[in-house]
């Protein structure tokens, strides 16, 4: 036990750096993935057959883009995106470089999460807004999104957890973060104790994110008293 503490204390700076890197990759990729995925999800619903502006071709194309993005395995996506990553970030190694494939992997997923959240909405409230002469943009901004917030937050929890685990995978191909540490110590140097500590850390972060966001979603949901 004492040994483990000594190991842990010596290991802590490395672990802390990894933690910061993981949080940086996750936070940045979640933010950018939502910037792209949220409008896509809204458009998926709006252009759908029962949407505000039904448009079959647009809906089909958007659906195809999203499905294609979601069907490419992440590890392959990293390789595929190497040239693009180099153009955007200037390098293909490191945590910042990993953000590019993380965003491309997560944005279509976010689009589907947003689509699911908005589709849950009772059509009656949209009818009510239409009867008041609200424009489509007003309906999206003042009815659909705010009324779906609890559901959107639950989606955010799932997206964030996914991105934490994908960022760990990116560690295998040169990104920093806890994933990189787990691989370096556990796989390359056979220091199983260090790998275990790292894994416990990753699991703890996932649990905290899940707990905090789900509690938040329940707290802000006024539909459940």
């Amino acid at each position: 036990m004492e040994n483990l503490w000594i190991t842990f204390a010596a290991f802590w700076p490395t672990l802390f750096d990894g933690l910061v890197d993981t949080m940086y990759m996750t936070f940045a990729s979640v933010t950018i993935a939502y910037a792209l995925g949220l409008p896509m999800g809204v458009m998926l619903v709006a252009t759908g057959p029962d949407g505000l502006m039904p448009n079959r071709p647009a809906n089909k194309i958007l659906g195809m883009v999203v499905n294609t993005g979601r069907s490419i395995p992440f590890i392959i996506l990293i390789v595929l995106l190497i040239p693009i990553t180099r153009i955007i970030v200037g390098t293909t190694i490191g945590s910042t470089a990993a953000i590019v494939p993380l965003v491309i992997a997560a944005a279509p997923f976010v689009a589907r999460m947003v689509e699911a959240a908005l589709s849950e909405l009772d059509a009656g409230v949209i009818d009510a807004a239409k009867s008041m002469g609200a424009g489509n943009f007003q309906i999206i901004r003042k009815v659909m999104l705010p009324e779906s917030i609890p559901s959107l937050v639950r989606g955010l929890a799932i997206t964030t957890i996914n991105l934490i685990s994908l960022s760990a995978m990116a560690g295998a191909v040169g990104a920093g973060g806890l994933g990189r540490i787990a691989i370096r110590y556990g796989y390359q140097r056979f220091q199983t104790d260090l790998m275990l500590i790292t894994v416990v850390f990753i699991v703890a972060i996932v649990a905290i994110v899940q707990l905090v966001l789900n509690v938040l979603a329940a707290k802000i949901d006024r539909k459940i008293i």
Partner: protein
Amino acid sequence: MIKLQNVTKIYKNSIHALQDATLDIDAGDIFGIIGKSGAGKSTMLKMIGLLERPDAGRIEILGQDVTDFSGTAANTVKKQMGTVFQGFNLLMQRNVEKNIAFPLELIKADKTYINQRVSELAGLVDLTDKLKAYPAQLSGGQKQRVAIARALATNPKILLCDEPTSALDSFTTGEILRLLRDINTKLGITIIIITHEIGVIRAITKRMAVLSEGRVVELGQTADIIANPQHSMTKLLLNVEKNLDGEE
């Protein structure tokens, strides 16, 4: 004030929801539309509310031919009407105050005016003590009163009600109908109320139309029609009530 001339609506599945429907509604009236389920009542209200456009015929609202209105032109007319729904259709993530304020936010009214208007309306529907409550915390009758206050927020000239009491018990139905009648007399707002219950028609309407399979089969003063029904559908709807009375 409102005129429908030979209005026909055919939905994509080739259902003739309305056929050659003609009626007129006077300013300041409480007008009832009754019919069985599927008769085309909601479709007719959607036509008047400019939520659906007719396939044939002409619609006039507030002296304007709105038959071909869509987009911004339609939205301008819609803002002069308020709608109350069977299922209340309140915004669940907004409290009572914010629900009533919603149509005013849409027209970007200023904050002090919104606050003043909300407290006025809350007084009118007797919900002053519930302004901070959320819809999920209210009874059906209270929810409908919020919906009525919301529908009145922009000072509409016309209030459209699609089965406003169908989700409520008979006591609460009476309460809501009295409120609608008060609104009509106090504010002079024209009210159109859709229902499948002749009791609702009897309680508050002056004139009425009977819809059957998309057609207006009877139109006139409520008292006259109830005293002397002409069409078999009218008789049927009146009999439903008699039969129920007989059972009690």
